[in-house]
């Protein structure tokens, strides 16, 4: 199978600003492969290195050593991001723009033709149910509406790989269902989805494979069934892999 997202011995070390204080190692030689067409869940407790991995993949942070590539192109090259969509955990968009203007701006960044842009904007606004609010500034949107704008912008280039950072965090049950539906639809279209999440139940439902990281190291990678084997469910397997010791008194 073709690996469209790959990291090899990826190491990220943040230098300390204090003299005589050691830097913080966020990733310790992470090896990861995500294949075309799969929904891949990236799990780990807070501070495990999930966000750092995403930051490297998206070119926000350069790796200290090792390599990371998208579609075989080094992530340090902007062109590596031509076929991806990214949905951040929280809404970070220009609030003075309307949803339509924001989508048009990102379409220009992807170099889409005008007719194609118009068509995609119309279909995405319909998909996220923001047609009636398309000409209002984003600052006037509710949190849920802003999340939906985020989802629309992540799909503007019809990406082959979608990178989602905790896509359902902070959403109401309806919003979560909508995101799950979209992930499912993308999977049916043969797209690849790579997402980090704390919602293990959700991961069990929609992921083909998962990876569990802890303290910057890969602890397990495989199918949900494979990782859960010998445990009651994925949550139990997860807790054991990250070294959680339940309190016998509780």
């Amino acid at each position, binding site marked *: 199978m073709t690996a469209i997202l790959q990291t090899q011995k990826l190491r990220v070390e943040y230098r300390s600003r204090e003299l005589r204080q050691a830097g913080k190692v966020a990733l310790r030689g992470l090896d990861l492969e995500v294949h075309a067409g799969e929904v891949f869940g990236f799990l780990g407790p807070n501070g495990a290195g999930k*966000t750092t991995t995403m930051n490297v993949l*998206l070119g926000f942070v350069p790796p200290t050593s090792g390599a990371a590539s998208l579609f075989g192109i080094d992530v340090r090259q902007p062109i590596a991001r031509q076929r991806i969509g990214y949905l951040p*955990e929280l809404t*970070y968009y*220009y609030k*003075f723009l309307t949803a339509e203007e924001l989508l048009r701006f*990102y379409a220009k960044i992807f*170099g889409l033709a005008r007719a194609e842009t118009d068509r995609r904007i119309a279909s995405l606004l319909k998909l996220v149910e923001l047609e009636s609010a398309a000409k209002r500034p984003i600052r006037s949107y509710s949190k849920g509406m802003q999340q939906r704008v985020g989802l629309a*912008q992540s799909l503007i280039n019809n990406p082959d790989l979608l990178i989602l950072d905790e896509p359902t965090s902070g959403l109401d049950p309806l919003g979560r269902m909508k995101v799950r539906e979209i992930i499912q639809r993308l999977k049916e279209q043969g797209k690849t989805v790579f997402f980090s999440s704390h919602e293990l139940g959700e991961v069990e439902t929609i992921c083909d494979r998962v990876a569990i990281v802890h303290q910057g190291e890969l602890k397990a990678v495989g199918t949900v069934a494979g990782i859960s084997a010998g445990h009651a469910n994925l949550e139990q397997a997860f807790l054991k892999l990250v070294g959680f010791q339940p309190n016998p008194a509780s």
Partner: protein
Amino acid sequence: MSKIFALAGVVIRELYRRKDFYVLFVLTALLTLAAGAVNFFHDDKIVRYVKDICLLLIWVSALVIAIVTTARQIPAEREARTIFPLLAKPVSRAQVIAGKFLGCWLASGVALVVFYFFFAVITGSKEHLWPWAVYLEAGWMQWAMLAIVIAMVLLGSIYFAAPSSTSTISLIVVVGILLLGTHLKVIALQQPEPLQSILTAAYFFMPHLEWYDLRDFVVYDMGRVPVRAVALATVYAAVWTWIFLLLAWLGFRRKNLTT
């Protein structure tokens, strides 16, 4: 190039959806109109006085718009975290710097056109003269100077996180150059060593923004500056702008941006 223009478009859109430009324009217009309405000492040359005040206000307003708009670009993107969905697209950090520069420079250009048009109308209504070529030259030189200022502020905004500190430091540097630039060499000659060498070196290694001030040509009807001089000044501005943008890119290129 289309990515750079797209980024510039967002900067311009932000400027005209904020109130800074309108406030400064209204303030400039009111002060000029008030100055033009009175006739101190029944002086026939009152129009020069109006021109002087109006051009000074245009210079101050254009500098404030350019510096304040530019200073908030990168820090605001980082603070509001809009930089993350942007850099997750196929856009390089060099293009982000170039787009921000172009947006701020074009926005300043639009502001200058509005200001100079107002100036031409006010002075034309009093003098019944319309020296458009002189105004165009003065406006062009001011815009060229703003290119250097904007690139310099963009460089500062990479290193100073707060837009307010970038704006303040930039304003002090720019006003310092405008006021002392011409005199620095003379001051240097009056100083003991090593201060003399330091000041002389500073004179040769700083962008001479004061060369772009053609207000006296406009106010005292001194005619046009030779085209060759304007062309050389434009090249000089382009070189300094390029140097500052290069330094800004070098600073921004390897910056860790953590979500």
